């Protein structure tokens, strides 16, 4: 249970700052015609042009390594940026090869892409990529085994908890939550409309408040806070202040374990605990079995 969770060095909670840098592939996956809509697509191209560098400068002041999830093809295209990110001490982790949907691929194909992604990222950053963030689509059943087989040690793709847990294969999951992402708050485009309802851009002050409220609660309960930023949404001159204020707040506590996803996953693996029967992961397996029995 949560209260029994112990973090290293008697820290109260863990905090992982992560960045998803996909160079617009998530937008293209939803609206392929963006490729020919130059104005619209440039909204996403901003990330590589300016956002990555701006986030890196902010992290420099923060003084702690972060975890970046990058599709290997994007990393190749922006090899210079990826080398800079790695040289600044951050981890470069996999976000697939070309932002593919793994639930539409045969396992053997998936395995190939997952391996190639790791190899490419390794070649560019000089460090082993051990983490994975599912690009889009559903998590295929037993996908944890494929990831393990391809050499990954952890994922930050599913939900169900606010502390790490282990899949059947031993792959560690660092659960993520939409309220701790920037995209649901800030993504906006006129045509095509993202998000669908094309709702107003929210108060920056409100977004900062929500992220702070979550952090304070994660700290109070001893949980693992995983923030997910994107260069195109958070790496702008106006919004970088939100990131700076949040990071300053997090750093103001000396009982927070500021770590990368890989560090938290390593730590969790060492504890080796197995999820109990009522853990969402186990209940999901029971649900599949139930459906199978019903025919």
């Amino acid at each position, binding site marked *: 249970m*949560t209260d029994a969770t112990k973090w290293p060095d008697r820290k109260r909670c863990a905090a992982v700052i992560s960045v998803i840098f996909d160079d617009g592939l998530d937008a293209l996956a939803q609206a392929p015609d963006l490729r020919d809509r130059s104005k619209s697509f440039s909204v996403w191209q901003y990330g590589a042009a300016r956002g990555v560098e701006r986030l890196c400068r902010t992290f420099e002041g923060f003084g702690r390594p972060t975890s970046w999830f990058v599709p290997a093809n994007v990393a190749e295209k922006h090899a210079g940026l990826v080398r800079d990110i790695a040289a600044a001490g951050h981890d470069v982790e996999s976000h697939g090869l070309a932002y593919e949907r793994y*639930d539409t691929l045969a396992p053997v194909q998936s395995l190939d892409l997952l391996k190639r992604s790791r190899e490419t990222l390794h070649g560019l950053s000089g460090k082993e990529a051990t983490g994975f963030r*599912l690009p*889009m*689509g*559903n*998590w*295929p*059943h037993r996908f944890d085994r494929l990831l393990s087989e391809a050499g990954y040690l952890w994922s930050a*793709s*599913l*939900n*169900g*908890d*606010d502390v790490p847990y282990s899949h059947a294969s031993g792959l560690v999951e660092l*659960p993520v*939550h*939409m*309220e701790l992402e920037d995209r*649901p*708050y800030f993504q906006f485009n006129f045509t095509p409309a993202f*998000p*669908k*309802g094309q*709702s*107003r*851009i*929210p*108060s920056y*002050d*409100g*977004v900062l*408040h*929500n992220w702070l*409220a*979550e*952090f*304070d*609660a*994660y700290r*109070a*309960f001893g*949980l693992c806070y995983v923030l997910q930023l994107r260069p195109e949404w958070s790496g702008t001159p106006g919004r970088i202040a939100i990131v700076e204020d949040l990071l300053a707040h997090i750093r103001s506590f000396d009982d927070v374990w500021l770590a990368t996803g890989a560090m938290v996953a390593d730590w969790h693996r060492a504890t080796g605990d197995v999820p109990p029967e*009522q*853990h*969402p*992961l186990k*209940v*999901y397996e*029971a*649900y*599949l079995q139930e*459906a199978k029995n019903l025919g």
Partner: protein
Amino acid sequence: MTMLHQSDFLTSQGNALWPTGRQSAVALAFDVDGPTGDAMLDGSLLTNPRYFTQGAYGPWRALPRLLDLLSRYDLKATFFVPTWVVLHWSDNCERIVREGHEIAYHGHRHELFFECSLRQQLDIMERSRSIFKERLGVTPIGFRTPSGDWSPATAELLYDFGVIYSSSMRGDDRPYFHPAASSPHGLVEIPGRWDVDDYATLAYTEEPDFPIGLDRIADYRIVMRNWCAEFEGYHRVGLCWTTIFHPKVCAKPGRLSILEGLFLAIRRHGDAVWATRCGDIAQWWIEQHGPNANLEARP
């Protein structure tokens, strides 16, 4: 369909609706849906573990923290729980009963009662009743219809089944009776409103998109102020306020601060607020108004 409503002017005539010394009633109510609902019903959840785990977070992590918070403010609430959730998270559901809260019907897998035949509705109710009895040792008296609508015959079906109240409608700001052929009154209705459904401000899921327009997650402080304003409004006029909160939505770690602000606002009025379970309010309403319900009916 005719509903049996109380007169609008009861309170202004000094004829208090609530027990002596109580100005208003609050029935905090939570729907512990977990991963049940549309995606489970149409089978798409089978291939979507991300969505499954998001729902499962409710009974697994959010519910225990919510129960802790309620206990800290000495508040009793009503939990509407699909019995599929009771089967898979029996321990946490047991805590609801053990700590003096009320547990009530909410379908087995959050079925759309509107789309079910009367036979199917009855099957769901019977299955739920036996699971509640077997796993938790209780027979609920309340019902909240999952996903909104039910069909015109449902109220009578539930009444004949032995349910005493429902908290499913939006048609008033105080309890009222559903009509019944066999009695002066049917089910007590404890209506809620979309204003106090946390989905309207805080829920956000992609694939499946929820809410469909994918409007932004609101500033937690604004949500708290709105909910407090709703509560204060009902209290001022002396009505009955209930909520449609979902632990997986409103009892995420940081959002407990919203609930805490609300609980503080309720507690600030001391005994002037009758903060209790839906079942208590329903019983009270029947005692006070049941025998004359038909006389108070309005067209």
